């Protein structure tokens, strides 16, 4: 009872904090809380939200994917060059190609973790460098500029629909699809089970390694999608785009209450965690706070969120012991579990 209440409470709390921040900022900067500006912030945070959801799938299985930003940079470069070289390729095909390339890069991570057994943090730290290196090899270090890319490629995500650009709608669509996958499919259930208790999952017939592999594939696919969105948004592709952005995705998950120990977390939490970072990033310059303070504030929030998570997990442990010690009746039933 307590844990679910904390989880629900936690997401409500995070939502409330975001609203309070928006209210506070709008006092200092009138116009901050207009629907137009808020839609802008959401649109601006879309890529982080999508990446954070991929990262969440990986973190749920007790892993981490540090290569998402490098994956994004490589796929972004690849589709930008494709577009520049063959302007005739229709956009849906390019987006499909971005996701497919991202999926392959994600599968490489998954393969190393599943089949070779390399710890996820090491495997993806390696591919982080490799994928950026490949982006350099692919482009020869050259940039793909706005003038080389087609207008369909660059402008489609900016087309507004009901006040929100397609870029933002893409994030909403991804949130919906991911929510269904996580809550309503066997794969989603396997993600939670294999992180929550790998041994129990194994004995229940869930292939923990394969689940983890597909979590990396999912994370890679979303990173590929974001590769296109990023290049279109900033109208330029070069080797160093989104450098360090993988840490923002992890931060969004941690702030959103995705346990780094695996098995705990909700889609709403990850989305709110990303939005929180998005609001801070967009609001602080508006009220004239230096970017260095932004970083410090983000860091502080991450630490507070981790403390919150740690407390939550400790409470979980205590609860079991106390109950087991308190009543002899459960002990009898404990035996019956055999």
């Amino acid at each position, binding site marked *: 009872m307590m844990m679910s209440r904390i989880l629900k409470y936690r997401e409500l709390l995070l939502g409330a904090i975001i609203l309070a921040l928006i209210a506070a900022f709008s006092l200092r900067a009138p116009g901050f809380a207009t629907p137009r500006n808020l839609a802008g912030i959401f649109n601006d945070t879309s890529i982080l939200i999508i990446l954070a959801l991929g990262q969440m799938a990986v973190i749920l299985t007790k892993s981490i994917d540090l290569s998402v930003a490098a994956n994004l940079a490589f796929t972004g470069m690849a589709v930008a060059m494709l577009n520049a070289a063959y302007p005739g390729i229709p956009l849906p095909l390019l987006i499909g190609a971005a996701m497919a390339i991202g999926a392959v890069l994600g599968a490489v991570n998954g393969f190393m973790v599943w089949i070779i057994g390399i710890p996820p943090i090491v495997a993806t730290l390696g591919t982080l460098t490799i994928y950026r290196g490949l982006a350099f090899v692919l482009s020869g270090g050259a940039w793909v500029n706005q003038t080389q890319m087609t207008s369909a490629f660059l402008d489609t995500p900016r087309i507004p629909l009901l006040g929100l650009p397609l870029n933002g709608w893409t994030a909403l669509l991804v949130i919906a699809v991911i929510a269904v996958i996580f809550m309503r499919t066997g794969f989603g259930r396997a993600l939670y089970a294999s992180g929550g208790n790998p041994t129990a999952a194994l004995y229940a017939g869930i292939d923990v390694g394969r689940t983890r592999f597909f979590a990396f594939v999912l994370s890679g696919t979303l990173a590929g999608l974001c590769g296109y969105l990023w290049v279109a948004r900033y109208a330029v592709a070069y080797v160093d785009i989104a450098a360090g952005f993988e840490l923002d995705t992890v931060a969004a998950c941690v702030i959103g209450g995705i346990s780094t120990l695996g098995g705990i977390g909700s889609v709403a939490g990850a989305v709110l965690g990303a939005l929180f970072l998005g609001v801070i990033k967009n609001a602080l310059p508006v009220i004239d706070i230096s970017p260095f303070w932004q970083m410090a504030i983000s860091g502080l929030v991450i630490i507070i969120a981790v403390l919150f998570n740690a407390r939550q997990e400790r409470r979980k442990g205590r609860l079991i012991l106390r109950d087991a010690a308190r009543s002899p*009746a459960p002990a009898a039933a404990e035996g019956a579990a055999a």
Partner: protein
Amino acid sequence: MSVVQVVAEPAHPLLEMRGISKSFPGVKALDGVDVALYAGTVTALIGENGAGKSTLVKVLTGIYQPDAGDILIDGAPVRLADAQAAMRAGITAIHQETVLFDELTVAENIFLGHAPKTRLGLVDWAAMRARAGALLHSIDAPISPYARLKDLSIAQRHLVAIARALSVEARVVIMDEPTAALSYKEVEDLFRIIERLKGQGKAILFISHKFEEVYEIAERFVVFRDGRSVGAGRLAETGQDEIVRMMVGRSVEHVFPKVEVAIGGPVLEVAGYSHPTEFADISFTLRRGEILGLYGLVGAGRSEFCQALFGITRPSAGRLALEGRALTVRSPQDAIAAGIVYVPEERGRHGAVLPMPIFQNVSMAVLGRTTRAGFLRLAEEFALARRYAERLDLRAAALSVPVGTLSGGNQQKVVIAKWLATLPKVIILDEPTKGIDIGSKAAVHAFMSELAAEGLSVIMVSSELPEILGMSDRVMVMREGRLTGIWERDGLDAETLVRAATGNA
């Protein structure tokens, strides 16, 4: 240090334990045990699993404090307040799995925590290496003190562990199943070291299940049963049969709720099941409504065999048939789909996914059944969970609360519900009552009878003889990865099983 060659056994014990008792909630682990150890003598401590041997070791090494009784060294009472005190008193133990450090050198491992110091309080490396070298030499171990532990073989590490145990001026050396992980040749080496320690006048407590070893190396013995010392004396004057009787000769003090069930036709037929390294040539037939006990010493390959049956590991040879049809099990999914489930040891740790809601835990092993067109049907999952929650009297505020918020007993019911939901034909229970108190055991046994009465077939892996004898329709014994026999319940006695399990023909 003058070495006394002990020829005859000294009249007075070097270490004596009198009336030592130690209780834990619900369990009396030691109940007034008496043990005497003599200088220059190996005393074997013999007993079933759970007889209190490990507790005794922990009392002697200062990890547990006895509730009652005295420990005397050279006739004078001592208090072993903690591990340091026991070490200072000259008591040292070599455990089955010694904790050593891979990245440190042999000398560092030996003296970790009590390294010789210079006048400035810094580690005296020269002295440390010299003393490590001398210690290794004293046990005939050709190992350099400079070598890193990770470069040594298992047997060499064992020697380092022994050197470490001896580095504290030990007078009493406890060896807790030291041969469990050793090959035949390595056991011979170990015995030479023990002979040498004997020659140095040390009192040795040797814990082992293996009778050949006990008779080869020890002069005296103590037998433990249910936390009591039930016999002691000289091995030369005592036959193996007598010791086996002491080990198992109990009045069955708790009545097993075994229900007579009409045993049906064959359900699971196993033929020649083998694994490259863990077990070989296991064949038997499991019948409907039968409880088949699987007895053996710890490490006999029982769990390994059961895990292969369940698809966690792959056998190298052998065939399976379920209800007359050939069956190939490549993964737990295959096993569950066929109707075989395996409930591992330590259900607390391996049983439920605590952060997950109850209904998701219950449906976890049967997700295929609650999925339509790729999507989970939550309503069906809830219905499934509700059905088993009612049947098992599971108490929870709602079926959507995380299992981690439930009491221990209700958590266990969730785990049972998960397995029953798979509608199993064969259920493998690995040490179903390990570490739980008598009352809980009775509940488990009653539940097992209930399952059998419903027509399920049960394989019960157990190291506890009363449970094996009390609950099984037939008993299968494994020893060192091989099946040593299958016995019908009628007329079966504990001695037969202990002999089959220990290789004492």
